[in-house]
C-alpha cells in the first residue's frame, strides 16, 4: 500500500475519533460557560472566564443525594452479582451433575430477553411486596438482570482452571467451601475485576428500573434524578452541562485506570456469542 493510501486510512480513523469525542468536548465547554456566552459566542471557543459556578449551583441544588444513591446501589448490586454469579458458575463448570448444561442455557437465555416485557409484572410484584419506592427493589433487579452477562464473562475463565488445583485441595482435606472461597475466588481475581467494572458501568447507567420502581427523591439515582434537574433548569445550559458532566465523570475516571479491563469485559461478553 502506498503512502497516500495510509494517509487516507488514517484520516478515516481520525474522522471516526473526532465524531466520537467532539460532542463530549462541546458539552464540557458549555458546562463551563454562562448563557450569554453560549448563545452569543462561538460555540467551539474556550470559555472566556471558566464558570465553575455552574458546578457549584448543581451541587447546591442537591445532586449529592442522587450521586450518593448511585454510588451505594452500584456497589451493593455489583458485589451481590459477582458473588452469586461466581458461586453458580463454579458449580456449573467445576462439578458434575445431570442438569448442568440445561441450567446454564437457562441462565444465558437471559442475555437475549427484552427486560421491558417483564416490567409491568415486576412492578406489580414489588407493589404487593411493599418494595415500591424502596432501594431493595432496584438492587435485587440489578443483581438478577446482570447475572447472565456476568456468568458469561466468568465461564471462559472457570473452564480453564486446571483440575489439579481442585484435586490437590480435596486431597489436602479442604472442604468445597474452602476450595471455593480460599482458592478459586482468589485465582479468578483478574476476571472478577473485569466483571466488577462491567457491572459497575451497567448499574451506574441504569434508568428504566429506577424510573419505574422509585418515586421519592431521597432514593433516586443520578440517571433519574438528573431528569428532574434538567427539567428545573430549563434554559440554563451551563447548569445542564455541569449536571451531565458530573453524571459520567466517575465512569470516565474509572475508564482512565481500567480501560484494559473494560475492553476485555466487552469483548469477552460478546465474541463468544
Amino acid at each position, binding site marked *: 500500500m502506498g503512502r497516500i493510501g495510509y494517509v487516507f486510512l488514517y484520516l478515516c480513523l481520525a474522522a471516526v475519533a473526532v*465524531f*466520537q469525542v467532539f460532542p463530549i468536548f462541546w458539552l464540557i465547554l458549555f458546562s463551563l460557560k454562562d448563557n450569554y456566552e453560549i448563545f452569543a459566542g462561538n460555540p467551539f471557543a474556550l470559555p472566556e472566564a471558566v464558570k465553575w459556578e455552574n458546578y457549584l449551583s448543581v451541587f447546591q441544588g442537591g445532586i449529592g443525594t442522587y450521586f450518593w444513591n448511585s454510588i451505594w446501589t452500584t456497589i451493593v448490586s455489583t458485589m451481590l452479582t459477582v458473588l452469586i454469579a461466581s458461586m*453458580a458458575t463454579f458449580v456449573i463448570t467445576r462439578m458434575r451433575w445431570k442438569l448442568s448444561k440445561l441450567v446454564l442455557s437457562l441462565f444465558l437465555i437471559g442475555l437475549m430477553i427484552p*427486560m421491558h416485557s417483564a416490567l409491568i*409484572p415486576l412492578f406489580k410484584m414489588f407493589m404487593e411486596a411493599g418494595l415500591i419506592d424502596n432501594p431493595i427493589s432496584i438492587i435485587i433487579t440489578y443483581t438478577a438482570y446482570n447475572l447472565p452477562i456476568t456468568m458469561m464473562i466468568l465461564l471462559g475463565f472457570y473452564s480453564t482452571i486446571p483440575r489439579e488445583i481442585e484435586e490437590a485441595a480435596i486431597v489436602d482435606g479442604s472442604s468445597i467451601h474452602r476450595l471455593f472461597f480460599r482458592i478459586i475466588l482468589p485465582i479468578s481475581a483478574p476476571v472478577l475485576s473485569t466483571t466488577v467494572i462491567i457491572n459497575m458501568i451497567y448499574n451506574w447507567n441504569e434508568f428504566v428500573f429506577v424510573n419505574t420502581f422509585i418515586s421519592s427523591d431521597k432514593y433516586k439515582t443520578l440517571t433519574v434524578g438528573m431528569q428532574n434537574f434538567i427539567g428545573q433548569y430549563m434554559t440554563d445550559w451551563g447548569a445542564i452541562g455541569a449536571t451531565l458532566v458530573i453524571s459520567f465523570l466517575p*465512569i470516565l475516571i474509572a475508564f482512565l485506570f481500567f480501560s484494559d479491563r473494560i475492553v476485555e469485559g*466487552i469483548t469477552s461478553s460478546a465474541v463468544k456469542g
Partner: protein
Amino acid sequence: MMSNKWIITLYLLPAFLLIAVLIFIPLILSGYYGLMNWDGIGIMQFIGFENYIQALQDMKFWSSALHSFLLAAFSTLSLIVYLAVALILASKIKGTNLLRKIYLIPMLLSSVAIAQLWIKVYNPTNGMLNSILMAIGIENPPEWLADPSIVLFAIFIPIIWQYAGFYILIYYAALKNIPDTVIEAAKIDGATPLQIALKIKLPLIMNVFKVTIVLAVVGSLKYFDLIYVMTGGGPNGASEVMASYMYKLAFSSNDFGYGSAIGFLLLIITLIVTVIIRKVTATKEEIEY
C-alpha cells in the same frame, strides 16, 4: 470431578431464585396479564384475547413496531461500516490501541446522558449541529427532533455514536485472533491488502459477524431509554417504538392490561426474530486454526 447435591443446590440457589423470580416468572405473567382488563390498582378482570386482538388492529402498535424494525435495519447496515473501520484498525496501523479506547468512550455514558447531550446537539438555534450548518452557510437547518419525517434518523445518529465503539472493538478482537501465519501465507502468494481483507479476513470472522447481527437487531427491538428521554416517542408518535409504547400505555395511561399484552408481544417478536436470524445465518463448519 466433584459431585455433591447439597453443595450444588446451595451454590446455585441464589442465582436460580433471582433469575426465576425476577426474570422468567414476570415474563410469563406478562402474557397472562395481557388477558386482563386492569388499571394497575383495581381488580383484574379476565377478558380473554381482547387485548391481543386490539393490538393487532392498533395502528399505533404497528407503527411503533415498524419504527423498531427500521432501527434494527439501520443498525444492521451500519455494522458494515464498523467492520470496515475495524479492518483498517487491524491492518498494522500505529496508535490503534488509543483509537479503540477513544471510540469506546460514548458507550460508557448512560443512555439518559447521551439523550440529554444530543437534545442539546440538535437544538434548533444553539445546538452544535445547526451552529456548524449555519456557519457553512445553510440558512434554515431543520428542527431535527420536531420534524416527524426526520426524527427517527436524528435518533439513530446518537445510537450509532453510542454503539460504534462496541462493535468496532468486537470485530477488532476477532480480526486479531486470526493467526499471522494465515495472512503471511496469503501475502507470499501475492494477495493485495484488499484481497486479504475481503477474501481471507472477512470469511474467517463471519461467525462473529453473525453474532453481532443478532445483538444489533435484538438490541434495536428493545431500545427504550434514549428515545424515551429524547423525544418521548414524539412528535405525534413519529419516533414511538414498541418498548416506549408499552411503557406509555401502562405508566402514563394506566392501561396495564393492554400494556402487558404489548410487552408480551415484544418478547414473542424478539424471540421469533432471534430464531429466524440464527436459522438464516447458520453454518455447520467450525473454524479452527
